[in-house]
């Protein structure tokens, strides 16, 4: 691309009139690092990257992956990256009415003026947003119809471990950690741009890198019923892995959002990966091996980050923070170094017990927010099946202790529709909710008791690629509804608020998660049918998806409730995630011992 087109501020002003939360679209935050696209010298040699998070600003800006890539790429002298988020529906309407293309936040560069567009995709229900963003940016959604005059389009992030449903739309995928490979890719983009190479040359070059999947170079054959017959070549795409996290500095000067975001605080990743091995959890397998940062570095960077950003809250992020051996040393170190400042610390994935409850009291400086537990299931049998090592006694003991010490709120996470689930498991889930109420009630009286609220969140188990349960079929929506009904009818509503997930949305999530290339047509049909923000319950419309499957000539049950047989080629078998299929199968067999 030799010319950069930008949106004038005066047009943005017109667009923003009457729009909800205009702060989403203005950029200009503290911590912006993009380079100036107005200098002609830079224009020809610089690679301009759009980093797209296909959800709204408030969600995207809470994502640490986005901040990491933004930092690494922008710190490179030859590359400049700008952010793009999904516009909310009101702003999309304005863009379409006025026929204005979607633009980046930093320099308001139109999407189709970038050299490369990279999507960071956290989950499957954002797929329609991806197509929508390409379309709003004036870019053809089909990879094959984009030539060298169009931006290259790539995608990465946890959902992309099964890239097949999006393979028609995206030129190449990045599987695994992005820190190292993104720079390697951009070096190739630089040469592609400078020497005016063909797109195929580029794809060929990047396909040699670890973690790179170029759909154009693979061919998949299917049986008539839609199962994968074989793929060619039989070469696996190996996940990109950063072996030592300590090689990369914590981002201590992130972009600080101007409007309130979902997680509005300074975030430090203390550990990547999780050794727990819960059999339903995709993150637990795809982020292996477990890698920890050095505690002394973490203390140093935490202090630096708090000073740089002005935040008064820090979050130590990992999949299981109690498994970071030196968590106490870290917390003490940070508190001691920032004595004069007001600071609260959050540990989003702390496994609570009586021991670390004290830790929690220490870091919250006397403020007693809520306690969160994720027993996932009500029965010990089921917790053994899924390999979730949390005992009921320990949890109830901790709740008793906490409520005795002044805590007033507790939240429990459950899943239904787990493999081999029976009526007894559901009854026991309902009983566990009752026991939690009793444990809390026993320690409260008077006004505090009348204020007691226990939040219960019940999700639908959705089989995910690269987990021991990847072969399992999704429960039928009718069955899931029955299970919800039982729990709702048996919960003491005076004390509990129950939120549950839509089984039909789980169905779509499942189809997109374990689907093959054929599902691409369904995504396109749904998007054309008006599907957007499918992760938002206000927007999700199953009828659109039902129609989309019908139009594509596919049966949604084939991709959801059917499951996979053990000798079947799975759509993601051409990816080497670092965990062997045999191992996952053995784990699945192990889970059956507890039935």
């Amino acid at each position, binding site marked *: 691309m030799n010319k950069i087109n930008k949106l004038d*501020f005066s047009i943005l002003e017109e667009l*923003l*009139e009457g729009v909800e939360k*205009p*702060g989403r*679209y*203005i*950029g*200009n935050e*503290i911590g912006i690092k993009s380079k100036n696209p107005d200098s002609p010298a830079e224009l020809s040699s610089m690679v301009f990257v759009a980093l797209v998070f296909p959800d709204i600003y408030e969600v995207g800006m809470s994502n640490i992956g986005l901040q990491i890539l933004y930092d690494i790429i922008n710190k490179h002298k030859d590359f400049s990256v700008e952010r793009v988020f999904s516009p909310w529906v009101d702003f999309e309407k304005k863009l379409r009415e006025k026929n204005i293309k979607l633009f980046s936040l930093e320099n308001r560069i139109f999407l189709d003026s970038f050299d490369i567009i990279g999507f960071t995709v956290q989950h499957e229900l954002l797929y329609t947003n991806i197509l929508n963003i390409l379309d709003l940016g004036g870019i053809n959604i089909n990879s094959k119809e984009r030539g060298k005059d169009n931006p290259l389009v790539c995608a990465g992030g946890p959902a992309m471990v099964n890239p097949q449903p999006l393979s028609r739309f995206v030129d190449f995928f990045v599987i695994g950690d992005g820190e190292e490979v993104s720079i390697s890719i951009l070096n190739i983009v630089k040469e592609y741009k400078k020497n005016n190479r063909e797109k195929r040359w580029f794809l060929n070059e990047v396909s040699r890198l670890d973690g790179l999947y170029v759909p154009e170079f693979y061919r998949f054959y299917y049986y008539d019923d839609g199962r994968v017959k074989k793929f060619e070549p039989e070469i696996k795409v190996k996940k990109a892995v950063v072996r030592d996290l300590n090689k990369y500095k914590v981002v201590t000067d992130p972009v*600080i959002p*101007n*409007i*309130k975001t979902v997680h*509005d605080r300074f975030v430090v990743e203390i550990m990547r990966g999780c050794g727990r091995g819960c059999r339903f959890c995709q993150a637990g397998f795809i982020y292996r091996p477990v890698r920890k940062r050095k505690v002394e570095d973490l203390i140093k960077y935490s202090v630096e980050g708090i*000073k*740089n*950003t*002005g*935040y*008064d809250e820090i979050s130590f992020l990992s999949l299981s923070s109690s498994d970071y051996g030196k968590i106490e040393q870290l917390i003490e170190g940070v508190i001691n170094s920032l004595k*004069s*400042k*007001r600071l609260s610390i959050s540990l989003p994935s702390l496994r609570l017990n009586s021991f670390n409850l004290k830790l929690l009291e220490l870091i919250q400086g006397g*403020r007693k927010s809520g306690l969160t537990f994720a027993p996932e299931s009500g029965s010990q049998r089921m917790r053994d099946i899924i390999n979730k090592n949390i005992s009921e006694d320990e949890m109830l003991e901790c709740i008793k202790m906490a409520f005795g010490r002044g805590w007033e709120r507790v939240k429990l996470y459950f899943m239904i529709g787990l493999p081999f689930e029976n009526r007894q498991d559901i009854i026991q889930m309902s009983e566990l909710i009752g026991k939690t109420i009793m444990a809390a009630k026993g320690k409260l009286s008077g006004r505090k008791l009348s204020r007691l609220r226990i939040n219960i969140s019940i999700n639908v188990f959705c089989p995910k690629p690269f987990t021991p349960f990847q072969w399992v079929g999704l429960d039928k929506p009718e069955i899931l509804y029955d299970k919800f009904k039982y729990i709702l009818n048996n919960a003491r509503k005076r004390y509990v608020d129950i939120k549950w997930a839509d089984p039909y949305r789980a169905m779509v999530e499942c189809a997109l998660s374990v689907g093959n290339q054929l599902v691409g047509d369904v995504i396109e049909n749904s998007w054309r049918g008006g599907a957007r923000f499918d992760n938002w319950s206000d927007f999700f419309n199953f009828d659109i998806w039902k129609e989309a499957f019908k139009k594509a000539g596919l049966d949604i049950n084939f991709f959801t409730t059917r499951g996979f047989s053990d000798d079947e080629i799975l759509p993601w078998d051409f990816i080497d995630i670092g965990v062997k299929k045999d191992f996952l199968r053995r784990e699945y067999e192990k889970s059956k011992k507890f039935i």
Partner: protein
Amino acid sequence: MKNQRNLSNNGIRFKFYKKGEFRYLSHLDISRFIIRALNRANFEVVYSQGYNQRPKLSFSQPTPLGIESMAEYADVVLCNDVKEDEFRTRINRELKQQVQVTEVRRIIEKKDKLMNEIGLSLYIFTLDSECSNKSLIDRFYKEIDKGLIKGSFFYDSIFDYKVASQGEENNIILLKIFGYAKIFKEKNNQFFKFNDFYIFLKDWLKEYKIKVKRTRKEELFILQGGDLKTPMEVIER
């Protein structure tokens, strides 16, 4: 522990503007932006005591979203004594070009909260009469008092107004509206509702073929006796 009296000695009142993109940030967003800038500039802000501890930082009335403001005021109590110039230099380094502190004064005597003190907001509407003609403009001047002010729903919410032409060809008209920002018992007045007035104004101007080119909040005033004083003027040196 410092005692309360000592703390109020470290009170600072500052005035800042928000322009450009920053007009699109809400009052709460701006206050978060300011508190983070104070933290980055390494000022130690005093916090209230109790369960929900909050920084001792209070702002003047919110400016409607999307409107430029030259007159945002805030009072903050710091743990240490900081000179006015130093405060301005240090905080401005941590702000953006579109949000800058213009005036700083130390609060010697304990003052009421800004929101309780401020009685009037001055808005300036820059009107463009380029597409209009002389007779229409003359009619505009003649009818403004009755049509826009006294005869409108907004009369009880407007303390005063001024209208004057500007520019070489007189095609720019400045309309200054002093709207009430609080209720005065003795005046039987209403709050000036900017957004409602703005819609009404644009519609009312159509007849005269005049357009609103720009709007901004220009200044805030405290009514003292019969005088208008800015929040800075009421603080004695």
